[in-house]
């Protein structure tokens, strides 16, 4: 018999390659390799990443049975697994009951778990057991719809680099403690917190991602922050709070982030920053800030406009600017267009600004003045892209003509009108 043509191609590859292959398979397929041959019986049992998601579900009519099968599958996998588990991800719309989940987490806490991602259920919250807080090697933690109650003797996740909490219920004073007790934290994502006042002290933090309703955010000790993305929602409560608050939000938030490279703000972010902002004072320069994206900026609110201007004037190395306007129009206001001539310093130049994108452009006087201002003070500008909002179709031609006549400081600048994708 010619043994070569029948020679086993794969079983004798180094275990590291086999594990790489098995990790790239859906877990169900990986576990199924145990019936292939004698050598393959336990090859799957030493993989260090376990990802349970909808690919592990065996289709069935009865949801309860699917849920039960999933729980059994996870339990059996964990029980049969051998060696450390570095990554465990559970991503399903089914909600395993509390005893199961607690036991799995207890098991994982003994297995050198490094990456833990739990996103279960659709409408219910699970309560994180205390063993979660004693996973010393944890570097990556993502929790969705979870109730967190750090125990009193919790000293922090000393290896944690990435923390993402979405729709997590945690006592307000504990969240700050949690963040500051993770000395190596580099990336923080907080989504959908309620009316939060937050002071962030994270000496190694590089990326901050906030989404939700916040009353007050302070970045107190974040010297290495490189990227910030904030989506701020507003309720009446918070609006009232804004009116009464003192102190400059701009300074509190962006006061000590000298290394900032990218800033993204959504919804009410510029409004938030405008509270307490005094015109004319630029104490901090952002030497590394290259990309600014601000969405839903109201060009009818002078204060918001001032925030935008303050940002771009404090960023001498700004390269790309994207602004979209909010389309609330309260047309009864008188626009103080003299502002552009009188109050604003005319000698600022944006020496590195190359690309500007204006979206949802509706031809408001200040919008037009802003574009004129940018065109006139950006000597290396290459592209000015304007995308009008869908609501102002009749004025488009006039606006286009106006824009094209503005003086351009950059010989290379092109002004483009693009149709917004509907």
């Amino acid at each position: 018999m010619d043994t070569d043509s029948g020679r086993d191609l794969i079983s004798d590859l180094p275990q590291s390659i086999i594990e790489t292959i098995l990790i790239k398979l859906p877990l169900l397929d990986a576990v199924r390799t145990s019936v292939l041959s004698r050598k393959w019986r336990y090859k799957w049992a030493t993989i260090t990443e376990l990802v349970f998601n909808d690919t592990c579900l065996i289709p069935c009519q009865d949801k309860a049975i699917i849920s039960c099968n999933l729980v059994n599958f996870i339990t059996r996998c964990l029980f049969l697994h051998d060696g450390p588990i570095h990554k465990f991800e559970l991503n399903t719309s089914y909600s395993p009951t509390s005893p199961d989940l607690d036991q799995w987490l207890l098991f994982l806490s003994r297995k050198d778990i490094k990456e833990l991602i739990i996103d279960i259920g659709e409408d219910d919250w699970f309560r994180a057991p205390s063993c979660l807080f004693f996973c010393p090697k944890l570097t990556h933690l993502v929790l969705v719809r979870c109730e967190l109650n750090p125990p009193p003797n919790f000293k922090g996740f000393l290896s944690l680099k990435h923390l993402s909490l979405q729709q997590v219920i945690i006592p307000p004073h504990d969240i700050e403690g949690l963040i500051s007790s993770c000395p190596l934290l580099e990336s923080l994502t907080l989504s959908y917190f309620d009316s939060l006042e937050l002071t962030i002290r994270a000496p190694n933090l590089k990326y901050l991602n906030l989404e939700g309703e916040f009353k007050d955010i302070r970045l107190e000790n974040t010297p290495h922050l490189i990227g910030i993305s904030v989506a701020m929602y507003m309720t009446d409560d918070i609006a009232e709070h804004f009116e009464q608050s003192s102190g400059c939000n701009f300074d509190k938030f962006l006061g000590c982030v000298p290394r900032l490279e990218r800033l993204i703000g959504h919804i009410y972010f510029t409004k938030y920053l405008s509270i307490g902002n005094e015109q004319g004072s630029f104490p901090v320069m952002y030497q590394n800030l290259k990309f600014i994206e601000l969405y839903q900026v109201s060009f009818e609110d002078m204060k918001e406009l001032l925030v935008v201007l303050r940002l771009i004037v404090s960023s001498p190395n700004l390269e790309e600017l994207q602004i979209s306007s909010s389309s609330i129009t309260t047309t009864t206001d008188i626009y103080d267009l003299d502002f552009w001539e009188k109050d604003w310093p005319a000698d600022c130049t944006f020496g590195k600004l190359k690309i500007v994108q204006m979206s949802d452009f509706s031809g408001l006087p200040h919008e037009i003045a802003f574009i004129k201002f940018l065109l006139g003070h950006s000597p290396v500008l290459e592209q000015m892209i304007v995308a009008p909002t869908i609501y102002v179709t009749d004025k488009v031609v006039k606006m286009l003509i106006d824009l094209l006549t503005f003086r351009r400081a950059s010989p290379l600048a092109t002004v483009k009108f693009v149709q917004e994708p509907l």
Partner: protein
Amino acid sequence: MSGGPMAIVKPEMKSYIWLQTADGSIQQVEQEVAMYCPVICREVAQNSTGSSKNNAVVLPERVNAAVLGLILDFCRFHQVAGRSNKERKIFDEKYIRLDTQKLCELASAADSLQLKPVVDLTSRALARVIEGKTPEEIRETFHLPDDLTEEEKLEPLRNMTDDPRIRLLNRLYAKKRKELNERKKLKNVEVEEQQVVDERSVDDLLSFINGGDGDSKGVRETKNKKKTRGRKEQARNNSSNNEAGNCNKESSCLASGCLNSDISDMSSLSRNSKLQNSASATFPSKLDFDDFDMDDELDPVMQEKIDREVEDFARRLNCDWPEILSLAPERRLGPISMNGNGSLKRCTAGVDRG
């Protein structure tokens, strides 16, 4: 557009690295291409090999000439700095459109050369090959032996026998099993010996005469002996029939590699059998190269002791492990297992030890 002058690459200025593959072929490759590979880079840097044909970088065993060509294609494309990510992705997608065998060889070679991007690409491609297939289809694609018994396939998966207690227990069982094994072999070999002894002696003499330097020959013999033993074990593993007949052993051994015409192997076999016959007491040391690392001598007293130990152990462990223990690469003997009340039973489950 920059106005600078175009750089002119003079072919004669390029330097080359000499590489030698496992199958002996030596080729020269442009330096920047070869250095993209970490292992080659290290060899050149630390050991200054590769500068000439005589001093070629010896590549690891798993890299033959054909697969080296593939690896170098990858290096040649990716070491160029100016390529966009999109270009690289497109190249990668085309690059791994290979048949399964080539993918496996490429993965193995890339791993030995520590070229991680290729390992990742091939692993992903192999995962795609495996995904969604039934076990039969996978076995066919990769030529995997279907060597689990029906029972094993139906059994729920067991926990790994990495528990040190289990390992100890396994060792005790293995000792016992081995000793039973030897007794069987002794019987067989005697029969074998009688049948074969005539031819053997002549061949033996011949090999001695032809040998010349006794030492190296002796060493080689030992090595052959080891190989033969290994093959014999292997043959026992693979054969599904359960007869302990010597001819079975003989033929399976022959089938698995030592051909009829290979005299030295035959003579080593005879040497083996002679030794087996004469020195039962010294057996264990000769058998050391098995995968069990036993160094105890087995004699009846010891054997009893082992039996007692095993029973004791079992009772101490006191759990219901009907077929959980991994034993017998050879199914013929039937591994020994226990039920809860400590008495020994035989069953036919076998688990991969390796």
